[in-house]
């Protein structure tokens, strides 16, 4: 099993902490999902930050701070430095956003920030596209995890480019890969795991569900099912039918 900078995760589910109806609902969703990683952010302290920090520490999962909302390498680097001190971890989910509508990564700023952060001792989880050349540049920069998007953040569209995601899996057999963003249903998460991805990261699909805890449990089951199916070596699909019941011995009627 591929590890994440030396850490083996108990569950391949990484769950966001935003957009829940209440902190209590978020805690229930985490417990129901069995998620092993929680993503968090840093924002201007306006009174709620201290209690939220305590809730996060109480979840008992690995904390993965993000640089969400950063539109330049410089901004992302400074945010990462602040996050490292606040959350006492070298892990950083590196987001350098390149477009306001699609929230797609800025590949140039992403590589620039990844190089600087890795030189500074960070363990970078880059939010990237499924572009193979960009992925190689990130690996060359020292990234030992890649997190290609499934679809734009918060869209719930699932795996938009299955070909690209499969190609990436084949191209980087030794690098842990996480589908990050765009998942809307547990079946999307299961499919990513069936493709051989090592984990999925999602937030909105659980937080905005009518029953977040139930949806969190569904995602937890889906990633387990998908990972088990991958290990079980699925059959090859074929275009024509092939009878599963033996033809020999059928009665002459």
């Amino acid at each position, binding site marked *: 099993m591929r590890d994440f900078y030396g850490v083996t995760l108990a569950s391949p589910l990484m769950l*966001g902490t935003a957009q829940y109806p209440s902190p209590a609902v978020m805690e229930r969703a985490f417990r129901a999902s069995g998620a092993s990683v929680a993503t*968090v952010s840093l924002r201007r302290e306006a009174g709620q930050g*201290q209690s939220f920090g305590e809730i996060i520490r109480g979840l008992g999962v690995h904390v993965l701070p*993000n640089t969400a909302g950063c539109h330049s390498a410089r901004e992302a680097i400074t945010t990462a430095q*602040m996050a490292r*001190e*606040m959350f006492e971890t070298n892990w950083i989910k590196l987001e350098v956003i390149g477009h306001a509508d699609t929230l797609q990564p800025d590949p140039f700023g992403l590589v620039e920030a990844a190089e600087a952060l890795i030189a500074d001792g960070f363990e970078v989880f880059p939010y990237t596209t499924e572009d193979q050349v960009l992925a190689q540049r990130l690996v060359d920069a020292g990234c030992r995890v890649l997190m290609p998007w499934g679809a734009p953040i*918060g869209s719930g569209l699932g795996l938009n480019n299955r070909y690209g995601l499969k190609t990436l899996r084949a191209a980087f057999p030794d690098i842990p890969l996480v589908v990050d963003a765009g998942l809307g249903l547990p079946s999307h998460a299961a499919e990513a795991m069936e493709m051989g991805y090592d984990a999925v990261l999602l937030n909105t699909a659980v937080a905005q569900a009518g029953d977040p805890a139930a949806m969190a449990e569904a995602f937890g089951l889906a990633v387990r099912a998908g990972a088990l199916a991958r290990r079980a070596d699925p059959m090859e699909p074929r275009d024509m039918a092939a009878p599963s019941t033996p033809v020999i011995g059928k009665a002459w009627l």
Partner: protein
Amino acid sequence: MKIEVNGETREITATTVAGALQELGWGEARVATALNGSFLPAAARAGQKLRDGDRLEVLAPMQGG
């Protein structure tokens, strides 16, 4: 002096970042700071002098995806 704290102009008497945090009610809080766009580690706050017009960001853990 007047400095900008999280985007708002504040009048303070403190002369260091550590002093300003104390004065603004964040003496015991777990926060991360940036001064004029650059990360300022907690250990450097006591020795970091403030100047009129400085821009201080005081951040805390928040929900994130």
